[in-house]
């Protein structure tokens, strides 16, 4: 009986295949899509900063460096021997470690893979592929203010 139907209506089987196959694909998609999207972490707002007060000028010794919180990111503020303030992103361009000022060598150094930058943020030795991102430092009266280099 059903065999007869098949011969008489070859289009009917094709139609059912498309409808059922399509439904299956749509069903699978509608189950997987929310699951996959759930894995993607949400973006947290309200943490963007463009300017940060680092502290008072006399808090920073000459020839020293300090990590300043810039929103959620670390920024390295250096007061050079020549009494100049400079600020760089403290995130090593190699593999994301946090760099530090090396007083003994007068360079910026990353302990993780021995990457070295000079005091202009240029990568001079070791594996870092790019210079450190620069920040602007403004001395407003007694205050040291760091802002994004725009």
């Amino acid at each position, binding site marked *: 009986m059903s065999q007869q139907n098949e011969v008489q209506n070859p289009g009917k089987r094709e139609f059912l295949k498309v409808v059922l196959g399509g439904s299956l694909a749509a069903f699978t998609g509608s189950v997987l899509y929310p699951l996959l999207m759930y*894995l*993607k*972490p949400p*973006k*947290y707002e309200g943490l963007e900063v463009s300017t940060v007060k680092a502290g008072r000028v006399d808090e920073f010794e000459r020839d020293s460096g300090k*990590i*300043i*919180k810039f929103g*959620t*990111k*670390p920024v*390295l503020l250096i007061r050079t021997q020549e009494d100049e303030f400079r600020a760089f992103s*403290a995130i*090593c361009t*190699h*593999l*994301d*470690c*946090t*760099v*530090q000022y090396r007083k003994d060598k007068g360079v910026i150094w*990353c*302990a*993780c*893979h*021995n990457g070295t930058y000079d005091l202009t943020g240029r*990568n001079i030795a*070791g*594996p*870092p*592929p790019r210079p450190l991102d620069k920040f602007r430092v403004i001395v407003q009266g007694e205050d040291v203010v760091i802002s994004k280099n725009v």
Partner: protein
Amino acid sequence: MKKTLIRVYDWVNDRVHLEDLVEFLGKKYVPVNRHSVWYYFGGVSLFLFIIQVITGILLLLYYKGSEELAFESIKIIMSKVTFGWLIRSVHSWAANLFVLAAMIHMFSVYFTKAYRKPREMTWLTGMLMFFLALGFGFSGYLLPWNELAFFATKVGTDIAGVIPVIGKPIMIFLRGGEDVTGATLTRLFGFHVAVFPGIFTVLLGIHLVLVQRQGMSEPLAHEDRPEGRRVTMPFFPNFLLRDLLLWLIVLNLLAILAVFFPWELGQKADAFAPAPAGIKPEWYFMFMFQTLKYIPARLFIIDGELFGILMFGLAGLLWTIVPFWDAKSSRGEKNRLVSYVGIFVVMYIIALTILGWQS
């Protein structure tokens, strides 16, 4: 007592026919040859995994997996909880011994070419478990939320991000955001205590069933020997008792290490502190860490780090699929190339690890 046991056995046997299993165990033999000593390392790995499951569950009773509480909760485990220091120390030490035992097991299987036909699937499940063991190590390392762990996780997840196209989404998935934060801790905690153990248990089941089904592999040179000249040992009880004796020795070693060299907790992680000088990864990642130090920033036309990561990825892949490109061993012929590759890999790992420790 004995009568009760027999009655229980009969009751179960009546329903599920245990005698088949008993007969199978009675007929199971382990080959005896000059490489027999390596047969024990799979069992030792299994034993250490069981230790990890037990001590891991015990730690879960007090551990709190959040940015604010993780470090403090481990401090409490180590100072306030009775024998908490012991459980945590055993868990840390057993993790290291587990990777070591699995490594010895893997290399011994590689050098005796025990992965050859018909045991390709055993090798593959073993390799997947080995990678999972490294994943266990990596994810578990962050859980105390200390300084070393924080930077190790930054570097480790950043390495994933270097891979073209798929790298960045993978990195964000692993970190639970752009940076390593409490969200990363929550995710890796979930992997460490739920996802990895689940997958591992399935792979372990397949691995063990295959070993039971196919028996131990014999070295190539022994396979041609006539039946009469092959020496074997009954699995039950001879081999099993030896296994258990070794497990007892490992347990004692573990106790000595945990008591006399307790695992340190270090400093609490601070996202705004520079990476401490002398920072090093766990010993089993050391050779890769040291290699990354030597590769220059740019190599040919690509970033040095990308080059290093692609090379390690490729080497790992070739190693995993060795049963499929080493056709000679499957035919029962000697394959010196495979042995030389293995010797090179072992020497490379040892040399770079030593260099890493010295620097």
